[in-house]
């Protein structure tokens, strides 16, 4: 028997597979398809203080082995999520929930986390710092080590729950941002968010996505994400959730060998709504084949020896 249990900053997960934020909504659509209790956890849709209607159409484009999206953080706002989604999540998923939180100011991040303090199912806060800071000329918090650290400190002061900072890959040195978050008290990190990209329609000569640019995800970004998890693992001691292009049990193992304690699966869910279920079901056989007894032993396994 392979032991799939992992731990994220003291939170026990029955396996390391977590649907990534933005690809799983608040679980409703997938709960119609399979029993969500097989999941290690799930990271809900990025939630901001105010409701957001998101970007104009079109929001989606395709690339080789992946896709681009510019949804624009469409979400009903933290109060509506607590009032309407949390009670439903209680019915469809009984494991630890990861609450993905967005914000456009340091105060907004802190306030969103404060509101979740009493929400029992939420065991981890995943703080998306790929958002523009409206008080600093729209520069992304996650692109500046100082700003990333400031958000981390503010959020840590506002909650007793473990805080995982979700890092953007659109930086020169992601390890520097990771260290800044660790020093500011982050309990863990999640990486990577989508890579900024674009497509142009050669007939109309205009960008395909109305927002012009979008975030690239899917298998195309997997090697990039893997390398970044590797670099960050070398730079910090706190646990890492590896995310980016994971589409199979083998990808998840690879991500853990690079340094991930758990793995988020994103765009693969959109292509195949059963992606996480399949990965979880295939994991024991793959581990047995690889001679793995405890999956948690894989974390960082490629760095040693």
């Amino acid at each position, binding site marked *: 028997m392979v032991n799939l249990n992992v731990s994220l900053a003291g939170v026990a997960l029955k396996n390391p597979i977590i649907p990534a934020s933005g690809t799983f909504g608040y679980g409703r659509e*997938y709960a119609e398809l399979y029993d969500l209790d097989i999941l290690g956890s799930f990271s809900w849709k990025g939630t901001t203080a105010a409701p957001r209607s998101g970007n104009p159409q079109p*929001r989606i484009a395709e*690339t080789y082995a*992946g896709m681009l999206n510019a*949804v624009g953080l469409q979400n009903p706002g933290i109060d509506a999520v607590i009032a309407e989604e949390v009670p439903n999540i209680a019915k469809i998923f009984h494991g630890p929930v990861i609450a993905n939180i967005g914000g456009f100011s340091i105060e907004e991040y802190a306030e969103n986390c404060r509101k979740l303090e009493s929400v029992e199912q939420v065991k981890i806060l995943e703080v998306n710092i790929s958002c523009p800071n409206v008080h600093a000329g729209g520069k992304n918090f996650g692109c500046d080590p100082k700003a990333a650290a400031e958000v981390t400190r503010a959020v840590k002061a506002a909650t007793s729950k473990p805080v995982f900072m979700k890092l953007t890959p659109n930086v020169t040195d992601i390890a520097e941002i990771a260290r800044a978050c660790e020093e500011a008290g982050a309990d863990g990190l999640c990486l990577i968010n989508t890579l900024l990209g674009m497509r142009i329609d050669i007939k109309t000569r205009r960008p395909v996505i109305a927002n012009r640019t979008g975030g690239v995800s899917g298998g195309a970004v997997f090697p990039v994400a893997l390398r970044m998890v590797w670099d960050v693992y070398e730079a910090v001691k706190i646990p890492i959730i590896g995310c980016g292009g994971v589409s199979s049990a083998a990808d998840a193992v690879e991500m853990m060998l690079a340094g991930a304690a758990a793995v988020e699966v994103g765009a693969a869910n*959109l292509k195949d*709504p059963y992606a996480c279920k399949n990965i979880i079901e295939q994991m024991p056989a793959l581990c047995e084949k690889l001679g793995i007894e405890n999956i948690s032993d894989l974390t960082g396994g490629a760095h040693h020896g």
Partner: protein
Amino acid sequence: MQKTIFTLKTNREIAPDTYEMVFSGDTSSITAPGQFANIELPGRFLRRPISISHWTEGSMTLLVKAVGVGTEDLTHSDEGTAFDVLCGLGNGFSVDLIADNTPILAGGGLGAAPLYGVAKKMRERGMTPAVALGFRTKEDAVYLDEYAALGCKVYVATEDGTLGTRGFVTDIIRAHPEFDYVLCCGPLPMLKAIHSLEQLKDGQFSFEARMGCGFGACMGCTVPTKNGGKRVCKDGPILYKEEIVW
């Protein structure tokens, strides 16, 4: 929704670059005309959402026009090819809601496809559907014989006048003020023009959008409506006249 394998049984070019594709497979997830199938294609990341024209217990017919790399792959597939399909997606047209009205089905181009499924449902209930179909030109016209064989009253318009009335489906509807309800599918400018017709009390409009997942998870296809943002894939593709904003 159901994820299932469909096998291409027949593939027939019925107009330039336009194919009638009949698939065999489990259609039990299809509950209404106007729903769509999201088809996985080898080597393409995103599935391709295609409106279901009509179906039986073991087969499903799609009308597909090759307009991009995905639909080119799909329409050039060999008979016998198996496809991974998310089937029975979206809300579909409601035939129940048209009972007290004098409806017209209005299709532009391949908008004729899902309306054929509506017409079939109406015939099953003993109604005689009136159908207005618009095409760019005569050779683009599809399914005229099929609608006629079903016992529909068919009106045709072409932009260049090579078949039927010269003009648009809106010209046909305007010429028949008795129609007070519409079920329509076609390009956005057509939907918008129909929406502005004063004779229509209400109606059902089928929208399309670039989709990420097709089953309501990613918010990639959300459009604004008077009742807030709606996902074309899950809350639609049929939106109702009074909720639509342009």
